[in-house]
């Protein structure tokens, strides 16, 4: 009997090592990153076996194996070191500008008229980056019917595209969208004029 003992211990050790090796080879890690503006966020991780982990603190980690979910905490420096190439590969975040319009039409407000040259300078530069994409999203306030506002918001976006084109910005691949009054910047009652909602968002990514 005694002669068997080392063999059994050896087998046990091998089994433990194999399990550990398997665990490290198959452990997935999900790390919550902070939002750039510091606003709260969360991810919900659900394993194939049905257990769930919710990550709510920046740099908290869910470790997922085929049989269980664990959790741990890391920090910015460690994430940076572990995932440098992946973090750096992220495309630049979209930039966004807004032009405002006078009621009922496609004329810019005096303030936006004055802001236009400043914005154009930035846009000309950014638009020359490789594979840049320009999106113009028109909005209307709550005055008038939905059908009219859908059309008006699209016209506002097209007017901005024409303004850009006239100043040498390539708009041939620009996406032009009219969102009517479905996405107000400021909540307003139906039929109430609201300058801040009569706008075109210029998004460059």
């Amino acid at each position, binding site marked *: 009997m005694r002669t068997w003992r080392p063999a059994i211990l050896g087998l046990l050790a091998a089994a433990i090592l194999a399990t550990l090796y398997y665990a490290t080879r198959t452990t997935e890690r999900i790390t919550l990153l902070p939002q750039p503006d510091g606003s709260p966020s969360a991810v919900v*991780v659900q394993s194939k076996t049905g257990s769930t982990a919710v990550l709510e603190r920046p740099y908290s980690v869910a470790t997922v194996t085929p049989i269980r979910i664990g959790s741990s905490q890391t920090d910015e420096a460690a994430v940076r070191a572990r995932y440098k190439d992946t973090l750096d590969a992220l495309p630049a975040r979209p930039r966004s500008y807004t032009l405002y319009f006078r009621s009922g039409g496609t004329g810019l407000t005096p303030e936006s008229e004055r802001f236009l040259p400043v914005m154009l300078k930035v846009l000309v530069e950014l638009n020359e980056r490789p594979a840049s994409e320009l999106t113009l999203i028109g909005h209307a306030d709550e005055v008038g019917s939905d059908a009219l506002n859908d059309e008006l918001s699209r016209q506002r976006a097209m007017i901005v595209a*024409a303004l850009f084109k006239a100043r040498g910005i390539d708009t041939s691949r*620009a996406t032009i969208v009219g969102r009517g009054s479905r996405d107000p910047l400021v909540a307003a009652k139906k039929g109430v004029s609201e300058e801040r909602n009569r706008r075109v968002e210029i998004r460059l990514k």
Partner: protein
Amino acid sequence: MKQTILVSMVCAALLGLAGPGLASESGIVKTLQGQVLIERGASQLQAKVGDPVQERDRVIVRSNSSVGISMKDETLLGIGPNSTMVIDRYAYDPVTREGQVETSILKGTLRYVTGLIGKTNPKAVKVTTANATIGVRGTEFVVEVPGKD
């Protein structure tokens, strides 16, 4: 009204009715290091900055390489070395900002920044790994999946 309609017609003519490029395009390659392949059906393409990506594409990133992709709804993806990612499902309506974005990371690392689809409806965003499914609530995160080869 008449005047604005006329102006918009002139604009449309000037712009050649600019719209979103290819209908099947889900996103665009924005950054690239080293060797990255896009597998589409039976074909395999060497990716370049500016290339479109589509639903059902498999993005393969070799060693010492990485790629950054921006989806139409501003979902941003950074994929690290030795990774394979699949765009399982992508649909986006820029007017309503509704759609669906489902990706799988089969191996390697993925940095994920939720876009406008997730803002409209967090449930429409899903990231799948071998062991888990990840759902979001207005989020940025990194996923790491060990390789099998």
